[in-house]
């Protein structure tokens, strides 16, 4: 037992991916909390952007269920249109963006559209939202996903949001300007692209999880970077920041 939950560890790992002064496309749920932790710790000058047309400095003071909720707009740096905000992404002005997904493959491609055949899908997922735009155009892509064999797959049925496509320099050849997925944060481990193929490799294992368990729950033959670390436990400062944001302990259980 630790004094933090797995979700809290994921949030803090995500917060560490945000550098000070950066413009970050924040999604809802876990990333918005990560953004808040980063602002309160090492990145007090980060800017958070929401595709509906919102840019904020400090995160919303009250709980929000969607990015359009009132507390995310009150006192914002900018409430405007989608084109103005996502245009910054398309214009190459965004340092990093968060996305999630139903499936990810070993090249970091993400599916949120169709499981099975497009014409007669086994599961019709809700769709892309702005994720393809973020995946294509943010300088770095930060992915958060639950670590299960049916989610981390050899090849996704449908590339909603491009990672490294077929690997190697396929992404660059396709004309994509952002550097692609630089980290995948799961509930068991942290993966990063490694080697000339840009395949996702195991980079760190969360405390209390094992290499065998991680491999077993990955749908491809997961390789490791030369020196796999253990994910650093949250510092007292990080946890304090998280608890300040997550007053009701939503992420603690």
């Amino acid at each position, binding site marked *: 037992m630790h004094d933090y939950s797995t979700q809290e560890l994921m949030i803090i790992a995500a917060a560490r991916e945000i550098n000070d002064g950066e413009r970050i496309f924040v999604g*809802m749920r876990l990333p918005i909390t990560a953004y808040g932790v980063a602002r309160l710790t090492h990145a007090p000058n980060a800017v958070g952007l*929401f*595709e*509906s*047309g*919102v840019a904020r400095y400090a995160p919303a003071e009250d709980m929000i*269920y*969607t*990015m*359009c*909720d*009132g507390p995310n*707009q*009150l006192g914002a740096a900018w*409430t*405007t*249109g*989608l*084109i103005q905000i*996502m*245009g910054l*992404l*398309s214009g190459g002005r965004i340092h990093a963006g968060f996305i999630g997904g139903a499936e990810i493959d070993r090249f970091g491609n993400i599916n949120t*559209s169709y499981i099975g055949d*497009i014409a*007669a*899908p*086994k*599961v*019709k*997922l*809700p*769709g*892309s*939202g*702005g*994720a*393809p*735009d973020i*995946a*294509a*155009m943010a300088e770095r892509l930060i992915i958060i996903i639950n670590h299960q064999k049916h989610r981390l797959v050899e090849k996704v049925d*449908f*590339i*909603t*949001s*491009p990672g490294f*496509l077929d690997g190697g320099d396929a*992404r660059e050849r*396709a*004309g*994509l*300007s952002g550097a692609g997925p630089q980290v995948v944060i799961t509930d068991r481990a942290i993966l990063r692209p490694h080697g000339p193929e840009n395949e996702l490799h195991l980079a760190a294992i969360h405390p209390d999880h094992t290499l065998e368990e991680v491999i077993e729950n990955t749908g491809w033959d997961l390789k490791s970077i030369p020196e796999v670390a253990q994910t650093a436990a949250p510092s007292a400062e990080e946890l304090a920041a998280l608890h300040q944001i997550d007053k009701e302990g939503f992420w603690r259980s």
Partner: protein
Amino acid sequence: MQEAIAEFVHDGDSVVLGAALENAIPFAATHELIRQERRNLNVIAPISDISTDMLIGAGCVAEVTGAWVGNVSGGMGHNFRRAAESGQPNPIRIYDYSNFSIGMAFFAGAYGLPYVPLKSILGSDIVKSNPRMKMAENPLADEPEPVVLVPALKPDIAFLVVQRADRNGNSHIWGSTGLTQEASIAAEKIIVLADEIVEPEVIASDPSRVLIPGFGVNAVCHIPAACHPAPLIGRWRRDNVFFHDYHKETRAPEEFDRWCDEWVRDLPDHAAYRAKLGGQLEELRITGEALSAPANYATE
């Protein structure tokens, strides 16, 4: 609004129902389209929370053009899944876009560009699955530079919810607006659902807050809380419980039918809907004040 929909919306029309993403969704119009049994609609919206799912369940929809269809609180939209996976209550054709690409398609439709060349949708299989999009090379570049050509979208009609409008449709909107302006201007017809009707002087006191001027508006309907259960900045908070309940109560077709009878078909109009919500709606009403600093337009 009954008259406006009877007059302006026809079977087979392409209809924008909410372009501001998760706020200011014109659910009151969604309900009325279901009550008037419009069929074969092409519902166009980047993200409209459960509005699209309701229309699909009620059999109003032939095509969906958008970036995301579901229930932001509950995840999936059951009717959308049923229609896409097993053709119930009828098969639907889905045109997938990303948020930026549908935004730029509206922009092109609004401002007379036949298409836009985009880079932000490169690498996505959406380009392959949406037959409207086409890969090309930038003809102005010296080096090969792939782009995706996305044609203009010009909907037949757009419904939008605004905080206040005058009787001529001149409308003030504030807070994030998503694609409200581009989608409305791209549409052939615009119907405004105003939370409040004010004197023309109120709107004219701040012409920079006008997102859609009245001269493009075909009808103005005064419908308080037309957005419910979605929020409207400074007016109504989001009804999170209602979204959760919808998710729980529409898992099977017959469950959706029951839900739709209770909340839509058995009610004559939006006033009856508000009355049925009663105290639940009143709790969502924003009564506090956090007012904008004034802007001065004096000339002397």
